[in-house]
């Protein structure tokens, strides 16, 4: 069963080919790691799914979600998918949460919009979510502002925000890159756990093969707008076929992967 099927995705921004035919399949309950160097198109692939590509870009191909093609969906329908069925966690939780809105507001606003929940219902669910992502003192945290939390806590809150409407697909764009090494593992374990528990299809975009080997079930490697290698983690990381994957692995300090 496929949750999200990206087929032949091409993106041009201002005449430049950023993606040149990307194929990816995300399955429920599985973490699909997307690796590659900066500028290889990993992030653009994630943004294309939600129709958040920068101004002046054109996307062709297909992004299928439950029988619909997200690329041809009318804006109103696409807005229902965003946050509702496909959610996203961004790289830097210091900038991806609004500094002037309470955690509670940012957790409940899209729930109320997409799911039509009342204030009290949304609040109860938000507090439950905060507990689920292991924020201590969830009731208290609900009323506080993002700057009153540490980076790791903020990313957990951002994950709670992403999960609020029970999406089927979660796109995590370098979710641990901006965090201290000491809290990275905790956030990754949380993502892995939520994926298993909720049957989420996760697209984990990262340039860090160490992160990849820790949580991914499937791994795809991108270079210059193309997926050059794709397969189960063990296969891709232990017996890489493509020379680029090999050079990526060789550039790592030893024994970190596997």
């Amino acid at each position, binding site marked *: 069963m496929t949750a999200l099927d990206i087929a032949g995705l091409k993106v041009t921004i201002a005449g430049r080919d950023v993606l040149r035919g990307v194929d990816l399949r995300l399955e429920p309950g599985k973490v699909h790691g997307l690796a590659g160097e900066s500028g290889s198109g990993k992030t653009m692939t994630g943004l294309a799914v939600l129709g958040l590509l920068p101004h002046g870009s054109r996307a062709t191909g297909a992004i299928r979600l439950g029988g619909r093609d997200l690329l041809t969906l009318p804006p109103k329908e696409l807005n*229902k998918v965003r946050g509702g069925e496909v959610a996203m966690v961004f790289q830097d939780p210091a900038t991806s949460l609004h500094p002037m809105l309470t955690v509670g507001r940012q957790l409940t606003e*899209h729930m109320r919009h997409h799911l039509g929940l009342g204030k009290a219902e949304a609040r109860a669910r938000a507090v439950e979510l905060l507990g689920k992502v292991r924020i201590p003192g969830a009731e208290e945290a609900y009323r506080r502002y993002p*700057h009153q939390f540490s980076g790791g806590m903020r990313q957990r809150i951002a994950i709670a925000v992403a999960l609020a409407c029970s999406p089927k697909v979660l796109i995590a764009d370098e979710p641990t890159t901006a965090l201290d090494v000491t809290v990275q593992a905790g956030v990754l374990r949380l993502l892995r756990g939520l994926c298993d528990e909720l049957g989420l299809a996760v697209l984990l975009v990262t340039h860090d093969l160490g992160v990849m080997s820790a949580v991914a079930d499937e791994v795809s490697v991108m270079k210059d707008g193309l997926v050059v290698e794709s397969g189960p983690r063990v296969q891709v990381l232990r017996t890489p076929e493509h020379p680029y994957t090999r050079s990526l692995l060789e550039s790592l300090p030893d024994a970190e992967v596997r």
Partner: protein
Amino acid sequence: MKPDATRERTGPRVPPLARFLVRRVLLAVLMAWGITLVTFVLTNLVPGDPVAANLGQRALGDPAIVAQWRAEHGLDKPLWQQYVLHLQGLLHGDFGTSQQSHRPVADDLAEFVPATLELAGAAILVSLVLGVAFGVVAALRRDRLADHTLRVVSLIGISVPTFWLALMAFYVFFYRLQITPGSGRVDVALGMAPPVTGLQTVDALLAGRWDIFASAAGHLVTPALVLALYTIGLLTRFTRSAVLEVLGQDYVRAARAKGLPGRVILFRYVLRSALVPIITVAGLAFGSLLSGTVLVEAIFAWPGIGQYAYKSATTLDLPAVMGVGLVVGVVYLAINLVVDVLYGVIDPRVRLQ
């Protein structure tokens, strides 16, 4: 020693916003006192003899009359005593007596200040609404026709001098086209509404006199717009750049990824952040708008504090000049206080330190 940490814990629990407010208000009071000092010193430093400006040639020739006049107005005492007396008077609401009108300056101010407040208030309101709206539209329609049009309009607003604009508006709309009423605050034939607030439009509404309200509002439109045009232009430019900057922030993209409707993103996410730089500029712009009232009031014969200031200054009516300086200074302070408080209201990071 860690005084901050311990004081935080043992001190009484005051809500952050209240503590923030108290601090700002105390600071404002201190600055108000500073304004009295500055207005007093400046008015006394001005070259020019109030005696010569107020007495006729014959009287000036008689030392006895000059001495008596000086004693009458307290000018024979040392400067520091004059200041102490001035301050004492202020605390009792006594701004001194105008040497021209022979009335208490407080009475003069009470008569002229509301007229200016009505004019400047209307101009501020108009420039806030139009300036922010134009700026948002320009940002959202970046590099399209609306943006280019608004850029031209705001540049005109910023660069055209107020006095010229006032003259042209008066000439074109009143004299040539005859679509706006002439000078003054209301039609003379109608008379004024019974004074309650001193603001004609409000007083007319309170008295239920729709005819006076219509006339007062009609008289207000042209001078207020003329006065507002510079601020509209300035706010349009600043709002545009502030909104564009916020539109590029991660949290706006995150809000889009949440599937929130466009208007929610605009008002809740974008405008809220953009307001911080906007109110900073607005506060400064309103200060310069006040100085514009002197010119606009002169051209539209608006009986406000600008005209009063002009007359007092040219006759070296020192108590009146000090009174005007004080009022304008306090209005500046009030605007700054409002801006400071708004920072705290808009941005939790300011009040939760």
